[in-house]
């Protein structure tokens, strides 16, 4: 098809760290022959903030807010994983009502994350209308979260030993109304995604990952469930309310982009149902328990299912009020390597779709380098920037 291009000449197409396809910084290099990708490589680290090092100099409570800011989209789940870990170490049992509220917020967050993903993925495919509508509908969930917690992102619901905010009867009503609206919309989106033949041409049989390949690539979350691997931490290692009220597993077997769309959309539908169940059974009780400032020495592991897949926290305490080591394995790190295999042989036009198909979150991923600029940090104020601009243009004109 692309015989007009010189066959012997291969292009290297860089995508990122600044590129319209990626809303977050990551660098990919694709070697293309005409329109077909021949090889790919990945380089991360553009969003490093040194969080894993920084936690070693802050108290347990301060770390909660630091870790919540690892990711703007799945902030609650990071804080939850950390809280579960610390509470395990301290031997504290969180009141059941607090656990259910945590779960409700986690599921609301999953809804917001998946709807956001749907929009981004549609945008990558050049289907901006679906993008606009899914993001419009996502506002419903943002509003709910705002009413519930006061913030649209970084809800800060968790506190070590419980939750800050109670779920009142009026919230109950608001959530149900929002969910009813979203359920109707999501059913419609499922229809669009699985039936619109132009959209299907961009998703069906693109970047197929078989069951075996998914196991070899070690992918997690919806990406692996789209390939038929039954792996969901909410079921495998139930935490919070998932232990008492099991959630349904969503599985697709095709492993192509369409399956990744369908799995996420069906997870949305399941989340709506699940939140309704939790609202029905919301137990009465305390919101928090006391937790000591110093956490007993020991090591623990907490695994949760983030919207993007399995989130793994390893926490080591040495008995002081500062953690000794916290290691975070984010789902994107497990998924990102699969992209470099998946894109080979695909059209360049499909590459952004494949990339987004795993729902990468680079800021989750890039968190550990220390950029220690205290003292030497060069913050430019407006005047300095203006001066620089003047000098730049003077240099140019001469």
């Amino acid at each position: 098809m692309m015989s007009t291009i010189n066959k012997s000449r291969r292009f290297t197409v860089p995508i990122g760290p600044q590129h319209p396809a990626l809303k977050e910084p990551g660098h990919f290099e694709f070697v293309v022959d005409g329109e077909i990708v021949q090889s790919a490589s990945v380089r991360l680290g553009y969003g490093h903030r040194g969080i894993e090092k920084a936690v070693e100099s802050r108290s347990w409570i301060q770390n909660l807010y630091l870790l919540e800011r690892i990711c703007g989209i799945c902030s609650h789940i990071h804080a939850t994983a950390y809280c579960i870990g610390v509470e395990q170490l301290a031997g504290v049992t969180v009141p059941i009502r607090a656990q259910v509220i945590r779960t409700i917020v986690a599921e609301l967050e999953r809804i917001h994350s998946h709807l956001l993903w749907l929009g981004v993925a549609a945008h990558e495919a050049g289907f901006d209308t679906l993008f606009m509508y899914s993001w419009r509908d996502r506002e419903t969930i943002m509003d709910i979260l705002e009413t519930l917690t006061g913030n649209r992102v970084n809800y800060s619901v968790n506190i070590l030993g419980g939750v800050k905010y109670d779920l009142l009867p009026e919230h109950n009503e608001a959530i149900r109304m929002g969910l009813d609206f979203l359920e109707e919309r999501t059913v419609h989106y499922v229809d669009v995604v699985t039936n619109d033949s132009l959209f299907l041409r961009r998703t069906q049989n693109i970047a197929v990952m078989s069951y075996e390949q998914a196991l070899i690539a070690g992918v997690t979350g919806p990406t692996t469930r789209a390939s038929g691997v039954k792996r969901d931490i909410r079921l495998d290692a139930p935490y919070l309310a998932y232990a008492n009220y099991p959630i349904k597993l969503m599985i697709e077997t095709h492993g192509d982009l369409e399956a990744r769309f369908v799995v996420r959309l069906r997870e949305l539908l399941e989340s709506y149902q699940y939140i309704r169940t939790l609202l029905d059974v919301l137990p009465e009780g305390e919101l928090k328990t006391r937790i000591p400032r110093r956490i007993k020495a020991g090591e623990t592991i907490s695994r949760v299912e983030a919207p993007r897949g399995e989130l793994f926290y390893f926490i080591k305490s040495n008995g002081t009020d500062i953690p000794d080591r916290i290691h975070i394995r984010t789902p994107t790190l497990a998924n990102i390597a699969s992209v470099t295999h998946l894109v080979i042989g695909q059209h360049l036009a499909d590459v952004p779709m494949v990339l987004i198909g795993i729902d990468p979150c680079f800021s989750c991923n890039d968190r550990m380098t220390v950029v220690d600029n205290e003292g030497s940090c060069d913050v430019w104020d407006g005047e300095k920037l203006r001066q620089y601009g003047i000098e730049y243009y003077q240099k140019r004109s001469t």
Partner: protein
Amino acid sequence: MTNDILLKLVQEQLTDYVMEWVIPEPNRLDGSLSSEQLLTAATQLKNVDGFYLVAITGIDDGAENNTLEILYHFCIKVMIVTLRVTLDRNQPTVPSLCTIFPYASPYERETGEMFGITFTSTPDTSRLFLPDDWTEGVYPLRKDAQLEGVNDVHDK
């Protein structure tokens, strides 16, 4: 198979390789072993019991102990088996798990650059997270890492 039975089974299977077992939580098993035994133990875990590698954690025990620890976390359902290798801080070397778990590569790259651990025969040793102009020999997650001025991007 319940957790206890499986964990007991794992314990029996790996008894030749593992020096010491700890059971910190009911669903966890933590075994220390030497770096020579790591590959065989990991192969056993994957092929016989179907565990998958979930993360590789590095821990710095501090300059006074002069050791680094590297933890391999294997999971299946709710069970977690951790294999722990204690390394010499001056020359930390472990075999790469990439032949058994191909997806271990990014984890090993991460741990390698953060702790200065050498993974023998790992396919890719290029930097994953650290900047290209990061000073050689500075491993940021070691406790005694000298980070003042290492990465002052603004001054460059």
